[in-house]
């Protein structure tokens, strides 16, 4: 569908709608409109958080319960079923696993929710004209705020496992921010793909699961299994989660390669994701 409207698209007084080439909309008015309606994305995410657990007994307590259960499941998996391996540094390994798991689940949750936001927002898309990018961004915002209680849970685990507190832990949010941008970018890519191939929905969980095992979550970054060593640095989550865990668990400042790698992947995913999404978003209504 090679049709779109020109720059006045979201201007409230005069609109001109006409077809032109497939491609990006005029970027300046697009981002202006996007910024103007940031309140919409924020409000949507707030109401979604409020509405999420209203039917359950525990309600918002699930935000704390979820990471605890997650930690339990993977504790069973790695320490009990797999025999635990060396008992040295078990507490640190557990703390590391929790830090990695929570960050990974935050990432995968944000990405999956962002991916589902366009196909799931059917009616809103059919009846309102607004920059569609608000939908995945709002989903990522939701995931971010739902992740915040998890940080407190991690801190609790950190204390219980008798890990030291380091000032370097305060730098960890830098990697969290990079991870958020990366998740937003990936979410936008999958959101646009899902409009064309609905199968993406079913395929995504497996993709996420494989990614989990390939990332330094259940093992330390520098203890990468020998088989992975050759290509591990090409995994975007390697610097992102590796740096995050180094700072948070060990209080060690990651090497500059980790910072550069994380920043590179975050920016790349976000730019490519948003450009791809924008170039496709005017087709969404016709395809839904």
């Amino acid at each position: 569908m090679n049709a779109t409207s020109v720059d006045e698209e979201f201007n409230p007084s005069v609109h001109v709608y006409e077809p032109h080439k497939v491609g990006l909309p005029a970027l300046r008015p697009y981002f202006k409109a996007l910024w103007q309606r940031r309140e919409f994305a924020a409000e949507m995410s707030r109401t979604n958080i409020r509405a999420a657990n209203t039917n359950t007994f525990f309600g918002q307590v699930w935000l704390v319960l979820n990471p605890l259960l997650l930690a339990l499941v993977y504790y069973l998996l790695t320490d009990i079923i797999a025999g635990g391996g060396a008992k040295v540094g078990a507490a640190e390994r557990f703390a590391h696993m929790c830090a990695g798991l929570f960050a990974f689940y935050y990432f995968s949750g944000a990405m999956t929710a962002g991916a589902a936001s366009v196909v799931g927002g059917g009616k809103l898309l059919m009846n309102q004209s607004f920059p569609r990018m608000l939908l995945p961004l709002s989903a990522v915002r939701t995931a971010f705020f739902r992740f915040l209680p998890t940080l407190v849970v991690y801190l609790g685990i950190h204390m219980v496992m008798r890990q030291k507190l380091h000032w370097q832990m305060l730098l960890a949010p830098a990697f969290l921010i990079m991870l958020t941008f990366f998740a937003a970018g990936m979410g936008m890519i999958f959101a646009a793909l899902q409009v064309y191939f609905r199968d993406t929905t079913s395929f995504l969980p497996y993709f996420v699961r494989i990614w989990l095992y390939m990332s330094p979550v259940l093992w330390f970054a520098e203890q990468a299994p020998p088989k992975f060593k050759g290509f591990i640095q090409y995994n975007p989550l390697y610097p992102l989660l590796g740096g995050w865990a180094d700072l948070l668990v060990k209080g060690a400042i990651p090497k500059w390669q980790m910072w550069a790698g994380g920043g590179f992947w975050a920016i790349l995913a976000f730019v490519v994701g948003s450009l791809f999404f924008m170039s496709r978003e005017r087709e969404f209504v016709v395809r839904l």
Partner: protein
Amino acid sequence: MSSLSVSETEKKPMQKSTSNVPAVKVQDVSITYRTTFERVPTFKSALVRFGRGERAVREVKAVQNVSFDVNHGTTIGIIGANGAGKSTLMRAVAGILPPTSGRIEVHGRVSTLLSLGVGFNAALSGKENVILGGLAAGLSRKVIEERYEEISEFAELGDFMEMPMRTYSSGMFSRLAFSVAVHMDPDILLIDEALSAGDASFKSKAAAKMGELVTNSRTMFLVSHAMSSVREMCNDCIWLHKGKLMMRGEPNEVIQAYTKFLQVGEAESVSLEDL
């Protein structure tokens, strides 16, 4: 311009505002949906098609070479059989669906009340939906909070405004949708058969509100199968058939031609309808 439009008689341009620019200018617009044969496109069928070297796109020409102008202060009825392209045309005017070819110029703020739902999320309360809808339409939170009172008063839903919308009846849904649409202070209001579920008292209230908007030189598009309401409320009329503009003019004449075309007696077509 379209050669397909049977009559493009600019019947008394019911101009109430002083400006010469029409509110909506539709120039030679065509809208084509490209769909694959499957109801929902999947990767597998795409692969199979790719293997066979086919591209199974079927084009649905929903609107074909339609041109017309609508002046400020006009209430224009849009009639036509099911699948004539009425809703598609409304979506295009609202800027939701881009035209495949041609050009649409809209002067003024558009508010839509479209038939396929109103962008409401059933898990959220009526109030939350009103605020979200307003924000999506680009209003500021302050303005919406102010209008919220009017909206809830007009909709007369009482305590239901605080309840999730999944608890609403379809009549309540359309009451709220209508209230939102008319209170968005639109210059151009698009109404697409959304009133069918309202009860008699709300319909007359809605009709009064629409009349009020029109006297304030607002422009209104009314898509309806209810000929009596088109005849009552509109001072201009368009008849679409299979995506083509068949006739434009005085509502009575257009409706007469339309009902004759459908070979339905007028009495018959009126008997089952209401506003």
